[in-house]
């Protein structure tokens, strides 16, 4: 197997606060290969955004503490200088953010904002940056780009602004595109369009994509591999088929059970995962998910489960249940009505 594009090893990100050390990301390791789409799924506060912001070294909080390594193309980004990091940002790794309404500077035209990034990374002749910006706007499907390039962000709709953000992110042909909940702030029809766009652009530009979302439905279509995060750790990792058809961790079951599905025999109430995520300051002993897990037993209280491969190639999970137990129990969470009829 080729050297991965990005390899995160035992990354820990914590924040010093008055109440104590908040361990937002608590020892996670994963890789992203060239051209691969990795979905990072988890609820709010599970550390998905912090992980990817750390890859970009975009966390400006002075109270942040990093441990571990983030190796990108053989270089540990934790150790590179600020200036070297600036060259990586935007040119090699680009990022799309959640809220397109606030992610663009309101006082500059979209063209100015795209050209700024191009001029920062390339030596361009006068007019070249503008031509490239128009080309990018065309590629992301903005009608009449020659006119829209001189418009301000507030003159675009939410979906169009997210297209502009994507054009901005792709302007320097990055090898890795980090999309932090790119569709969360958009309405459903626009969500589908944006996901389709990311999928197509990934093909055209050949970028790897790390797609952060709290919605498994979003990654179902485009992710090659999925990481499920809970309380700052990865609790399950596998390819799309493994996660959707053979989920191992009860938290993943909960996420799958809470997707609204139209292909089920009768309408039921969406199941929610009961309880709240644990405090990241005083992590409960044993498994972090235990207080919310209906399957928990004695061992979960005593022993912290490690992320290991139990079922097959590349499918890792952190749960003490045996594979047989999991397979027998999970339908009750994911598809209650199927479990009842069985």
């Amino acid at each position, binding site marked *: 197997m080729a050297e991965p594009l990005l390899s995160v090893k035992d990354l820990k990100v914590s924040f010093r606060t008055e109440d104590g050390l908040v361990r937002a990301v608590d020892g996670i390791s994963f890789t992203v290969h060239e051209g691969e789409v990795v979905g990072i799924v988890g609820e709010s506060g599970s550390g998905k955004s912090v992980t990817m912001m750390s890859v970009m070294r975009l966390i400006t909080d002075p109270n942040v503490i990093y441990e571990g390594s983030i190796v990108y193309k053989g270089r540990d980004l934790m150790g590179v200088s600020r200036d070297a990091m600036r060259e990586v940002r935007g040119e090699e790794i680009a990022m799309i953010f959640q809220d397109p309404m*606030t992610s663009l500077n*309101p006082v500059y035209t979209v063209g100015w904002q795209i050209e700024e990034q191009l001029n920062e990374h390339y030596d361009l002749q006068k007019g070249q940056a503008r031509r490239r910006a128009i080309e990018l706007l065309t590629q992301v499907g903005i009608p009449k780009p020659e006119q829209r390039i001189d418009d301000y962000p507030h003159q675009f709709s939410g979906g169009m602004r997210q297209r502009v953000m994507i054009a901005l992110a792709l302007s320097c042909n990055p090898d890795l595109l980090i999309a932090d909940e790119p569709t969360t702030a958009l309405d459903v029809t626009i969500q589908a369009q944006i996901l389709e766009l990311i999928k197509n652009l990934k093909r055209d530009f050949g970028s790897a994509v790390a797609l952060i979302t709290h919605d498994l439905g979003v990654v179902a279509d485009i992710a090659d591999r999925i990481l499920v995060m809970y309380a700052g750790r990865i609790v399950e990792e596998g390819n799309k088929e493994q996660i959707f058809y053979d989920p191992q961790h009860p938290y993943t079951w909960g996420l799958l059970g809470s997707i609204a599905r139209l292909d089920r025999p009768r309408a039921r109430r969406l199941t929610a995962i009961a309880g709240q995520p644990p405090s990241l300051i005083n992590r409960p002993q044993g498994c972090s998910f235990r207080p919310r897990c209906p399957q928990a037993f004695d061992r979960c209280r005593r022993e912290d489960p490690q992320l290991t491969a139990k079922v097959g190639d590349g499918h890792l999970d952190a749960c003490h249940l045996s594979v047989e137990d999991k397979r027998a129990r999970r339908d009750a969470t994911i598809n209650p009505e199927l479990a009842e009829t069985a």
Partner: protein
Amino acid sequence: MLTFVVRRLVGLVAVLLVLSVLVFLIFFATPGIDPARRMAGRNPSQQTIAQIRHEFGLDRSLPVQYVLMMKHLFVTRDLISYGSQTKVIPEITSAAPVTFSLVIGAAVLWVVFSILVGLAAAVLRGTVLDPILMILALIGISVPVFWLGEVVNLFTQSRWHGFFLFSWVPPLGYTPLTQNPLKWFEGLVFPWLTLSVLYVGFYARVLRANLIETENEDYIRTARAKGISERRVLLRHNLRTSMITFVSLFGLDLGVLIGGGALLTEVVFGLPGVGQLTYTSLSGLDLPVILATVIYGAFFITIASALVDLLYAWLDPRVRPA
């Protein structure tokens, strides 16, 4: 643009009209004020008072008096002060350049220094220098300008005047720019500094707060994610949007000061500006001068707020008319 100017001009005329009527009415509705009596001097006879009253048209009905006063002010431009018995318009046109010299010089100082201090404090946030700068700014805001001015005078005019640092400072007063530019400048250095201290402190604090607030905006994060330098993020993205509040405050403060708000500084440094003129006319209940200075002040405040609106639209495309 044209409609904007026309609308503003109509608004200006309306504001001036309402203000002049209000000032006029307040003056006549206030009990115990009889300008004729005041002008007649000590223990006047009823006859003298009646004569003065007739001479100045004070025995006519209120609307007629108002129209007469406006006619003398704007049409024949020969409105006579009740107090000094001189024409009002030349008094204002000779006081205005003094005020303009004082306020515009101070404004340049306070804009430059408050941006520097605000930026420095925001960048040095988390170090000990930020609170030090902010406490200095707070002191600048709190120091009364008349006290500061007197202290400055004490050192530059008397106590340390012989000291080489202050020996160049001319005596209090104003030298017109056209007469002697160097003397004009020398005479205004300390008034400029004194007047700007309050505003440097205030604007620096406002700017720092805005810079820190904007720092948390999503588009600042986007700017960093684009790989542009911290310096550019600060100046082109953060400062640019943070200046919106700064500019709107600046326009209004400038209007108020040019309109006569720099009274204390003018008095302390012996500058015969509009503030002083307003003050003497108010204490002498000299209606023609009061009216003229109020209209003068309102004119500049309205112009300033129109300029602020233009600048605002230039700074923030979201408020531009489509």
